[in-house]
């Protein structure tokens, strides 16, 4: 078993496109929509979820043989909750403004279905290393969608990216206006709908 065998590669690559957690598995929608009104919180959220998915996958995969079947959900929840508490404390210490912006959605990573879904479907029956790759892959697949939606919403809604003004003042003087609708929650849903549309049309073929 080499470290990057074909199977391991698939566990890492598939979630980025063909088995994307948001677009195909329909997991973890809630936080994906709520944190994407600007690019920066979207990136931070994506990273946080990637780290937590990877490490909870490793922990559960390494103790999977000792967990009794009947209480596995509780065990999984406790592992995830502990990791989320750590990440949320670190966020508060390192990037306080982002943690205020994300508000309850950091805590809601616990109930993010991606975590439970990957733990149940993958980590419970695989070794720690492939589980780690699977966790990182799924986390990045999730982050990818967040970044796409966040970039669109910030660019069209505020004319900036990561806080830097991209659309010059002269364009505003000529009559261009920011689309305030983009910063509203409703547009996140419609944008994700459009992303799914494009993905289904060009990349993903249903069997």
């Amino acid at each position, binding site marked *: 078993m080499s470290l990057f065998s074909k199977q391991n590669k698939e566990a890492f690559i598939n979630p980025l496109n063909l088995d994307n957690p948001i*677009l195909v598995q*329909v*997991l*973890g*929608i*809630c*936080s994906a*929509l*709520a944190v994407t009104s600007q690019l920066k919180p979207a990136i931070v959220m994506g990273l946080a979820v990637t780290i937590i998915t990877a490490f909870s996958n490793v922990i559960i995969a390494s103790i999977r043989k000792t967990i009794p079947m009947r209480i596995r*959900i*509780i065990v999984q*929840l*406790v592992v995830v*909750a*502990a990791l*989320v*508490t750590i990440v*949320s*404390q670190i966020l508060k210490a390192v990037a306080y403004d982002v943690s205020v912006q994300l*508000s*309850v959605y950091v*805590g*809601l990573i*616990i*109930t*993010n*279905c991606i975590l*439970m879904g990957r733990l149940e479907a993958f980590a419970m029956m695989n070794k720690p290393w492939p589980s780690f790759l699977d966790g990182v892959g799924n986390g990045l697949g999730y982050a990818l969608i967040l970044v796409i939606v966040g970039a669109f919403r910030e660019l069209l809604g505020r004319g900036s990216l990561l806080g830097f003004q991209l659309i010059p003042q002269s364009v505003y003087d000529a009559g261009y206006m920011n689309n305030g609708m983009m910063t*509203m*929650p*409703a*547009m*996140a*849903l*419609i944008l*994700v*709908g*459009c992303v*799914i*549309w*494009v993905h*289904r*049309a060009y990349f993903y073929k249903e069997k």
Partner: protein
Amino acid sequence: MEHIISLFFRSIFVDNMIFAFFLGMCSFLAVSKNVKTSFGLGMAVTFVLFVTVPVDYLLQTKVLGPNCLIEGVDLSYLSFILFIAVIAGITQLVEMTVEKYSPSLYSALGIFLPLIAVNCAIMGASLFMQQRINLDPSNTQYIGNVADAVVYAIGSGLGWTLAIVLMGAIREKMQYSDIPKPLQGLGITFITVGLMAMAMMVFSGLKI
């Protein structure tokens, strides 16, 4: 009294769990295929909220808050683990009750009944409650005692039920419409929810 009424209506229409905060989207998208199951799940979620939010409120104010258990110690960083344990326990109870008294609803809800434990709406309501304790008492969103917590929980639950029942009704009709192939299923559902959320924004200007 006035505060309770405005809190109740605010949590149904303005701070709607689905349309304003996107909480509980996973089960919302998966179960809203027809009105009957939607209503059943909505009621189950409302019930779990009704029990968990007051319990979590008491935990937060009597055990976890600053200077509650031990003088000078703030335990609120433990809130994630404690809240999720309360929620998981109560969901287990609801599951056993539904299985005993309404087997048809139990089989219709299937996997989504145990998944209420990881429904973001439940955890979200507890976390919002935790934030709202620190608000100014004159704010309509303020939660100051157990009664407020109960009203907030029922209001959010009913708001969630309203959203999922409406969605179920629309999806029943939508089966007969002609939708471009790649947009069928998930894509059109998202766009529909987006349009509904836009319609619900009408309420956000209300002063109640």
